[in-house]
């Protein structure tokens, strides 16, 4: 992504998403759905999995998200909007799941051995997941959306149902917290070179 791309204004339709007029919505046909699903289901599953820490729950909630999408047949302006819609639905389902199960951290947190002591890649992978699961669900969602999905603050705000101006502070805190945890566990990357 270039610096110029960053300076482009937020699309008008997205910024006024709450106030736009509803227009008759064309029902999605099977071929369109299949194309959309093939493009979105994998990243969506990863997002849900990283939020919940459980593969079976991620399977279930990903399916539910697409069912909801098909049932509601929302008015969308473009593919990006459609993608954001399913991520928002999935986020709501994940937080509902946490409320129902009263469980936000799905893996037990142990003291991790120092990076040098970890023998194989599998264990390192496991440690990475454990560190991520120590964060609060909202922090996990913020970091994933910003760093993996490449969402802007406006898009994150829309997905998480928070104010756009709060995202900057929340994201900064989440990054700081993750950075501190990584340093403490000896997993911190080298940084700017």
């Amino acid at each position, binding site marked *: 992504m270039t610096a110029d791309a960053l300076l482009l204004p937020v699309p008008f339709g997205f910024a006024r998403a709450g106030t736009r007029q509803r227009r008759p919505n064309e029902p999605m046909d099977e071929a369109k759905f299949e194309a959309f699903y093939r493009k979105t289901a994998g990243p969506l599953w990863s997002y849900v999995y990283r939020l919940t820490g459980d593969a079976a729950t991620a399977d279930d909630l990903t399916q539910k998200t697409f069912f909801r999408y098909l049932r509601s047949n929302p008015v969308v302006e473009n593919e990006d909007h459609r993608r954001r819609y399913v991520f928002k639905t999935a986020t709501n389902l994940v937080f509902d799941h946490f409320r129902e199960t009263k469980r936000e951290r799905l893996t037990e947190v142990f003291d991790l051995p120092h990076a040098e002591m970890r023998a194989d890649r599998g264990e390192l992978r496991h440690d990475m997941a454990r560190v991520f699961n120590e964060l609060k669900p909202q922090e996990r969602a913020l970091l994933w959306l910003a760093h993996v999905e490449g969402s802007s603050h406006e898009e994150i705000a829309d997905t998480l149902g928070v104010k756009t101006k709060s995202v900057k502070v929340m994201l900064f805190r989440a*990054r700081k917290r993750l950075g501190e945890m990584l340093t403490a566990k000896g997993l911190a990357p080298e940084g*700017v070179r």
Partner: protein
Amino acid sequence: MNAMSEACRYEADVIYAAANDAWSESLRAHVASCEECAATAAVGPWMSGFARIDERERPLPDPAVLWLKAKLMQGSNTMERATQPITRLQIAAYLVIASGWAALLMWKGSALMAWFDAFKPNRIVSVPVPATLSITVLFAAVGLLSATVMLAFHTVLAEE
């Protein structure tokens, strides 16, 4: 929106540079002076590496299956909505009949029991049946019985 709440305009560039280890001199200089971007750069490579780990053990369900399931669910939801008034009416009928039976048994329970007792074989042989049940009660009992049987049949047929 004031400057305090606005995202740094280089944030996306910093995320990209941190993920791909593609730093330009100007971006490096910016990160050194921007606390927000420094925090982004500190976790960026880790997040990128973490995102690359594929933990999925099972393939995702086929979209055609999901589409079909969604359509079936839509169909059953429509049917549920359509049959809702009938279900409500059925529940109301159950309540009315149950109250009818309760009222009848409270009002003429003992008379009904005596009347039934009169049909026991030993009573038929020894004593003639006394006409202790009024025609109104008999009609009420027969009416309630018929309504109960009809409702039961209706429930069974509706289920099928």
